[in-house]
């Protein structure tokens, strides 16, 4: 087994770190080795095909019930994080699926948030005071994006041009669109955060497809150690690794 193929689990097992055996930094550093960029790029090609296979399976809707809603969500995220000469936008990164899947789970049901009443609007400095869960806010918000498109342009949100979509999203961001139980500004904040999270979370969550988000940004994902390269003056280009491959 070559050094670069040593898996994280094997590494921990063989060095005894997991069981607390004495291991000096020098020894760990010696074992890790990053390999040259050449080696890493061949790894990355192999990883990409694996991810593509995995991601065909993650394309299904767990939360939204209609293609129309999903398309509205997709177009809104794409305006927040558009495709450009740097690389993929939200849609190509799988961000809409990431958000859909998150809404179907703990995130969507606010299972770790304090959701007991009474509910009052409060000051901006007091934060989230809605009685609605994130799932309920997104469901309503996507509907309101469509309604606002019809109101302003007599057209469906997904049929608008970029400028028109931006106008509507800006109105949401400014809190100008009436929503029930929550402000449009708060919905927009959630939508923006979730889009960025989907672009850069580990690909196992369904976004950041093929680690394209990480590649654009220069983030190497999950690496065991930088002890051998952290003193280098030059910027280190390291092929990213997802958690599923350690």
């Amino acid at each position, binding site marked *: 087994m070559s050094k670069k193929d040593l898996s994280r689990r094997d590494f921990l097992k063989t060095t005894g770190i997991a069981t607390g055996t004495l291991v000096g930094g020098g020894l760990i550093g010696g074992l890790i080795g990053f390999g040259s960029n050449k080696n890493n790029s061949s790894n990355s090609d192999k990883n990409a095909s694996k991810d593509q296979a995995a991601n065909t399976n993650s394309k299904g809707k767990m939360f939204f019930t209609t293609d129309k809603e999903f398309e509205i969500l997709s177009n809104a995220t794409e305006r927040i994080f558009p495709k450009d000469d740097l690389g993929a936008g939200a849609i190509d990164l799988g961000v809409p699926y990431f958000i859909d899947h998150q809404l179907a789970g703990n995130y969507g049901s606010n299972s770790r*948030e304090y959701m007991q009443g009474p509910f009052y609007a409060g*000051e901006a400095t007091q934060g989230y005071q809605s009685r609605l869960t994130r799932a309920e806010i997104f469901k309503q918000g996507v509907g309101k994006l469509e309604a606002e498109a019809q109101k302003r342009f007599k057209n469906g949100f997904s049929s608008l041009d970029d400028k028109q979509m931006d106008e509507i999203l800006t109105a949401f961001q400014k809190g100008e669109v009436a929503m029930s139980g929550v402000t449009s500004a708060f919905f927009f904040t959630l939508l923006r955060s979730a889009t960025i999270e989907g672009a850069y979370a580990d690909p196992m969550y369904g976004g950041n497809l093929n680690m394209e988000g990480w590649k654009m940004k220069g983030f190497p*994902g999950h690496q065991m150690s930088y002890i051998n390269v952290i003193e280098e003056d030059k910027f280190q280009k390291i092929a990213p690794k997802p958690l599923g491959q350690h």
Partner: protein
Amino acid sequence: MTKTMPKVDVVTVGVGWTGGIVAAESAKAGLKVVGLERGAKRGTEDFMNVHDEYRYAIRYELMQNLSKETVTFRNNRKQRALPMRQLGSFLLGEGLGGSGTHWNGQTYRFLPYDFEMKTMTEKKYGKDKLGSDYLIQNWGMTYDELEPYFDKYEKTAGISGEDKNPFWGKRSSEYPTPPMKKTPLLQKFEKAADKLGYHPYMVPSANLSEAYKNPDGEQINACQYCGFCERFGCEYGAKASPEVTVIPTAKKTGNYEVRCNSNVIEVLTKGGKATGVKYIDTISGEEFIQPADVVVLTSFMMNNAKLLMVSNIGEMYDPATGKGTLGRNYCYQIMPGATGFFDEQFNTFMGAGALGMCIDDFNGDSFDHSDLDFIHGANIALMQLGNRPIGNNPVPSDTPTWGAEFKKQSIMNYTRSLSLGGQGASIPHKENFLTLDSTYKDAYGQPLLQLNYDFTKQDIALHKFISDKSAGILKEMGAKKVEARAPIDHYNIVPYQSTHNTGGTVMSLTPEEGVVNKYLQHWDCENLFAVGAGSFSNNSGYNPTATVGALAYRCAEGVIKYSKKGGSLV
């Protein structure tokens, strides 16, 4: 039906750094100790899949589940306090090891000035430097008195550092391990700080520069600079934390038992003394009483204060009259700083939680405040924490917050910007305090703790001063564009700022000024101790953990002393 457990010598509420230290020292001295921890058991073996920013840093995997309990908050007494429904400004934790599991590991001792703030400020600047709304007081112990306890904590944790800071107190010994690697980024900061006449030094770190065996025989491994420290546990056992140090030390004695998923809801008292605690097994739902000769509150400062309040021990602070001590002197930290944008690309994604260089030239009373309208200051640091991509999207302030330009700027500047951060000291003010909420309840039917807090004039002035100094260093470092942080006005509980919340159960020289004496023994209840950042009567310009650790060793000494002779220790 409530089940009563066999009586023990000492029960600690919470098993993090303070609970672990008190347990280790008491158990070594032959006392039978039970630690009640409301969160789950966890340790190094649970962190093999920890390099997941979304799960741990964004969705707060290791933090408290707020659906069960949170706090309420308002900026001032005219507002209606409302619950903090999701985590933001500070991250309440739970679980074995407490915040000691997911801390960054920056381990500064507070300054001599912090402990004698009243005396030293009045001596140099007169009695009315800030005015009577600020509740400045001395801690009841000086730095020199606490030095042996700092020394002990640093040796337990194996702290990596260098004694090169001319502004801090005298040390009785060198750091147990040498400082971390001085990376090119840190050298860049050092060069600029030197040129400006400041005194840069390596941040004292609990991510160890080399493998270390502590005086109790516990092994801490060497840091790998993987960039996943704060909000994560260490899969290498290379970050000093209670699970790899004091908890195993306590267990080895045979005198220590930890019960996880055990949420203490009340301190029981009779005739002015504590008889034990009542807790709920959060898995089975059963209620238990754990009788003990000594009860030690070793949970987060907010929970320590709340337990005393719901148990009716001590007098609640009333901001209208100034009477009462419980809940008084709540302090936080002010987060000034600046960001510099560069053309060159840096390895910002590598790092460790306490990998950094810093200066104290504008911290404590290192500089003259005669012509300034604030006291104290901030440690200013360049940290190489390992910036992760969801949480780090630095853009110049004129950039839109979304869309094509945001995407371009945030991607470009992710590896081309550096931020200097100050941790601004927080001075107690009569309107900043903790009390019980009268509306909202936790999952056990008890009132939530209520936080009353806003930035003061002192804070606003300090923030601007330190942000300007930080910008000056970044200019010297060669940034093509430098932006100091925008001035602050009102405290907002939404964005993350700091989990260095302090006060509420203050240590003091007299019962009129605090909740516990200088052995961390409750003034009104001699077999009850409370220790942690809640013991601070003011916050400093540093991370609090070393001072928390030192006070925990002091508290352990008090517990052992009390167990032998009883009575008030002062």
